[in-house]
């Protein structure tokens, strides 16, 4: 058999895809064998959602090098846009598979468009200012969704920002988006397999983007903006492109989220800044800029509080201590020195030297 001649990048990417596929197969086998608790089963789709979120945020934070604290806002846009579409199409003759596919495209497009709209003003700012403005945008999106009322009757759609009564729906009219109560009765179209497929698609998009000419341009901007500008890279264009792709992928995670639960509401818990920060924690702990790392960190850190569930009230406390300890171990100069001294590679090397 002819040996495949793959570049280092391609090998690295294949390993990443392999991890996802193997994890999927292992879970499927375990489920068939009945070894998976119902708690873990319920976590499978959220795991895919968080992994997609982490991988897409890594594009903004790790590859583009801009700190974004509003990533959950894009997820919110994707979730509501797609859930709205699915609700409208629920009674039509459209088959479920096609409906979900269209919902996916709509969710991703809506989030991507929001990414561009927000990106144009925001990307002019730098550093912490950019972080706070993305946070503000995330909160605004959440706030607006909470006062949005949309209903439909024979005359078409009715919009309101006050309450469901002021929609003035005709007879047989239905409220689709009901303000703070959100959207109720979204079809349950997503499952673990679809989640894994979407995660793989996200990985393919991001990894290919990073290794493309565009991706290299984006990384050049991250490493030295002025140098990149002086060799003729259009900063605004590339920044906006990376930001919009990242937003659209967060929209896909939102579609998955919306079609996993029967009711969709925009709470501080799921689409607020707490969520954005949680995703950021995955990215930083996974290693900023490492796609595979973000994905693995998202899975481990989502499972960790659940595995600690036996400890009840102490689990979030332990989670926070683990978080602080990991950061200190990773970044403090003393810990780095210690790790260098006792690193596995060095021990192996010393062992070999002694043999000689």
């Amino acid at each position: 058999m002819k040996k495949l001649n793959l570049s280092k990048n391609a090998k690295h990417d294949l390993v990443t895809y392999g991890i996802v596929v193997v994890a999927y197969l292992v879970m499927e086998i375990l489920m068939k064998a009945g070894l998976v608790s119902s708690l873990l089963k319920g976590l499978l789709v959220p795991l895919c959602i968080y992994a997609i979120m982490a991988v897409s945020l890594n594009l903004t934070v790790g590859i583009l090098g801009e700190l974004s604290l509003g990533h959950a806002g894009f997820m919110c846009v994707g979730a509501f846009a797609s859930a709205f579409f699915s609700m409208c199409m629920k009674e039509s003759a459209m088959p479920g598979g096609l409906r979900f596919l269209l919902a996916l495209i709509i969710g991703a497009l809506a989030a991507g468009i929001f990414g561009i709209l927000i990106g144009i003003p925001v990307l002019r700012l730098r550093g912490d200012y950019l972080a706070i403005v993305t946070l503000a945008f995330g909160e605004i999106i959440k706030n607006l969704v909470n006062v949005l009322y949309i209903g439909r009757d024979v005359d078409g759609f009715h919009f309101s920002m006050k309450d469901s009564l002021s929609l003035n729906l005709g007879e047989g009219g239905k409220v689709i988006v009901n303000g703070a109560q959100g959207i109720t009765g979204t079809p349950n179209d997503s499952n673990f397999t679809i989640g894994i497929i979407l995660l793989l698609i996200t990985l393919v998009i991001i990894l290919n983007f990073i290794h493309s000419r565009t991706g290299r341009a984006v990384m050049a901007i991250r490493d030295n903006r002025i140098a990149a500008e002086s060799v003729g890279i259009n900063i605004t264009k590339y920044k906006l492109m990376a930001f919009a792709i990242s937003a659209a992928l967060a929209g896909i995670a939102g579609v998955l989220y919306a079609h996993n639960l029967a009711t969709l509401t925009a709470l501080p818990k799921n689409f607020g800044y707490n969520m954005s920060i949680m995703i950021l924690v995955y990215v930083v702990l996974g290693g900023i800029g490492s796609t595979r790392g973000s994905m693995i960190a998202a899975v481990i850190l989502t499972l960790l509080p659940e595995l600690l569930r036996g400890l009840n009230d102490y689990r979030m406390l332990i989670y926070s201590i683990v978080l602080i300890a990991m950061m200190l171990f990773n970044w403090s100069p003393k810990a780095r020195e210690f790790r260098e001294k006792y690193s596995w590679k060095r021990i192996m090397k010393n062992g070999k030297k002694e043999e000689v």
Partner: protein
Amino acid sequence: MSSFLSYLITGISLGSVYAIIALGYTMVYGIAKMLNFAHGDVIMVGSYIAFLAVGAMGLPPILAVILAVVVCTTLGITIEKIAYKPLRTASPLAVLITAIGVSYFLQNMALLIFGANTKMFTSLISIDAINIGDGTVVVTGETLVTILACIFIMVCLTLFINKTKAGQAMLAVSEDKGAAELMGINVNGTISLTFAIGSALAAIAGVLLCSAYPTLTPYTGSMPGIKAFVAAVFGGIGSIPGAFIGGILLGVIENMSKAYISSQLSDAIVFSVLIIVLLVKPTGILGKKIHEKV
């Protein structure tokens, strides 16, 4: 007109609380160049301490406030020593995540000790309300004390920074850490002092906040914390008068939009104003323009 005036006054009062919290944010940012996400939770700790001191220990309000300040100051210095000091040379993102970790830690500690139930905070301020203009505008004691406390703190802080040696050291460290160290300034000590002052202010803000809005849960501090952070950015992060102006403006805008536009949309309006200001002036109202060297 009279209702406008009373909305304005409550807005200024809310803004004063934001300003006091924002001062802590902005000082820490100016010196340690880090976003201290745990600052909002120090407010919550301060409120709980005051709540316990009055409710369980039966201390007079003044002593309760002093106790809260002492506990929060100690807490602030301890957090800085354990969690932030080892990361002085690490990337800002790493410090940010550590601060988030500290924030989770404080929230969950409070959840374990005090439980998730909402505590009703009894106001520590027992001054009668004042009527202005034949009783059309009523200024409550809490409002009055909050505004006065904010002005008092601003004056003291400005005097401290401009007239004392420690204050000058702070300015020097915020401008150039390396040069300050060469001039014989104890950089670590100065950073500790900044955290101490910031946390003490957070304790005072916590007491004032809970006196005006008397519900206390382990998550009380997080939203005012974020708002104050917005206020600090609004005024130009790192600038002390900026934090004051940003805080007051934010409080007034929030209260006015609650009163005249929509109470549900007030947060969205506050954040929109922030975005517009930053688009016009990318470093905030009083922020310094950073020149880029090639």
